């Protein structure tokens, strides 16, 4: 791989052990993936920092990285951890909070920005064609598809290596010629009530190429598109979907060789069953994390309802939202909603057992079914709220 004199200097230890090792990781992985050079990135988003995922060995590693000179060389953000940072949630299990705090303290000492959310694009909107190095598959697909940014799905240590060097390897979606939509996916008008989380799970499994998505009933709200993309990225390894009217031109190429029409039964395979009358239901919205407008929309819907009838509604949001809009959060809590900040049930654990989870998030369904063995239904937002409140 070709390296600039500056990159050679860092590789030889000019900026300490951590940066040298990080650059070597990028070079070695890059070479294995056919990259011929590195590329500067404008923003690194680091995933794989939740103690419940990486445990003591991950904690030791992050500490070492800091102790041996690791420092952010580029704007760097952090994915959710395994604790509720607002202290308001009664559902999120906080028993690892001391261990998570040690990880967090190392990350913050390395000058990573502690947003603890999976929606980093709301903190710094990527520009079209901007090179990024992001972990967190739901954020990657959103950055590429909605903002036209250029990033691969970077696993654990790669985004971390990019954070402390400012580079990533130039391969995959960093090249326009690799951003080719080959499958036209039509979502017919008759599916306008079908949960996009379920459609996303189907698309992730069934489609192996970059899709161009044609919503025959018109573009859904951006929050629903966010859920669709996250679900595709969870059940398949999607990092880019072209949405005409949204994906910036000049950031993709179209070369359609196949057409697929999504049918209701395709989504139904992933929707799960309806909750039964006597079951304890966990309604879950917030995978990916909710934006302020979504939180306000949910609050508006809840004004019409009284207390939860069976189980609870859990919402997960960035900590900053909980801090800045405490009035809104208190209103939701007064309606019996549980609000978790800077975390989610996928990377943390719940304190209570539920018979069934009802969520709009295909991604949450995918992981909760697999990791926690939970029964999950994928439904629309209103149906999720009604499952708990009516």
């Amino acid at each position, binding site marked *: 791989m070709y390296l600039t004199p500056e990159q050679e200097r860092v590789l030889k230890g000019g900026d300490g052990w951590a940066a040298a*090792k990080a650059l*070597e*990781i990028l070079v*070695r*992985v890059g070479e*294995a*993936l056919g990259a011929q050079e590195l590329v500067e990135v404008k923003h690194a988003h680091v995933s*794989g920092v939740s103690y419940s*995922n*990486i*445990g003591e*060995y*991950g904690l*030791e*590693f992050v500490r*070492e990285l800091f102790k041996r000179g690791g420092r952010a060389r580029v704007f760097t953000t952090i994915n959710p951890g395994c604790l509720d940072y607002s202290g308001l949630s009664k559902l999120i299990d906080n028993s690892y909070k001391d261990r998570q705090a040690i990880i967090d303290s190392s990350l913050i000492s390395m000058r990573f920005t502690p947003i603890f959310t999976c929606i980093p694009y709301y903190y710094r909107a990527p520009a079209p064609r901007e090179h990024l190095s992001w972990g967190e598959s739901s954020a990657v697909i959103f950055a590429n598809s909605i903002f036209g940014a250029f990033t691969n799905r970077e*696993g*654990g*240590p*790669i985004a971390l*290596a990019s954070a402390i060097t400012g580079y990533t390897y130039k391969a995959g979606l960093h090249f326009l010629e690799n951003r080719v939509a080959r499958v036209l996916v039509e979502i017919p008008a008759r599916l306008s009530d079908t949960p996009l989380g379920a459609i996303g799970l189907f698309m992730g499994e069934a489609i192996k190429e970059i899709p161009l998505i044609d919503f025959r009933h018109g573009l859904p709200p951006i929050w629903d598109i966010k859920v669709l993309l996250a679900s595709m990225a969870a059940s398949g390894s999607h990092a880019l979907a072209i949405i005409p009217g949204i994906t910036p031109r000049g950031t993709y190429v179209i070369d359609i060789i196949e057409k697929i029409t999504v049918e209701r039964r395709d989504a139904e395979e992933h929707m799960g069953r309806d909750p039964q009358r006597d079951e304890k239901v966990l309604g879950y919205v917030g995978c990916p994390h909710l934006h302020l407008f979504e939180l306000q929309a949910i609050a508006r819907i809840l004004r019409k309802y009284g207390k939860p009838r069976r189980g609870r509604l859990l919402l997960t949001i960035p900590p900053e939202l909980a801090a800045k809009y405490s009035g809104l959060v208190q209103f939701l809590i007064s309606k019996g909603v549980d609000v978790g900040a800077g975390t989610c049930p996928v990377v943390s654990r719940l304190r209570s057992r539920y018979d069934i989870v009802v969520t709009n998030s295909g991604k949450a369904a995918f992981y909760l079914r697999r990791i926690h063995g939970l029964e999950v239904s994928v439904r629309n937002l209103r149906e999720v709220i009604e499952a708990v409140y009516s």
Partner: protein
Amino acid sequence: MDRYISFFGEVDPSRGVLKLGDRELDISGKALVMRGTRGSTVGSYIVYALRRHGKAPSCIIVKEAEPILIAGCVLADIPLFVISDYEPFVNSVLERRRCSVKYDHEMGALALY
């Protein structure tokens, strides 16, 4: 090991052993040969932990290398070899009761003894 290993879950880095069902295999100081790795990104940190506990394999030899394994080996300073003729190599190893492996820098090849 003629399979894909998941370092996270199948390796105990504090003791340097690979756990397979009931069996445990001591891998510290040995050349670890396997098809490749799979599983969570935490695997990189497990490989790193092997080095920190002084239990690292002398080298790792695979058919395919994926980023998690590469990252772990870089951090842990464990030489990682990806060999194109994996099957013949494995057969040669299995023919011997004991063998050691040596890397020839000039030839870019692994030699079996």
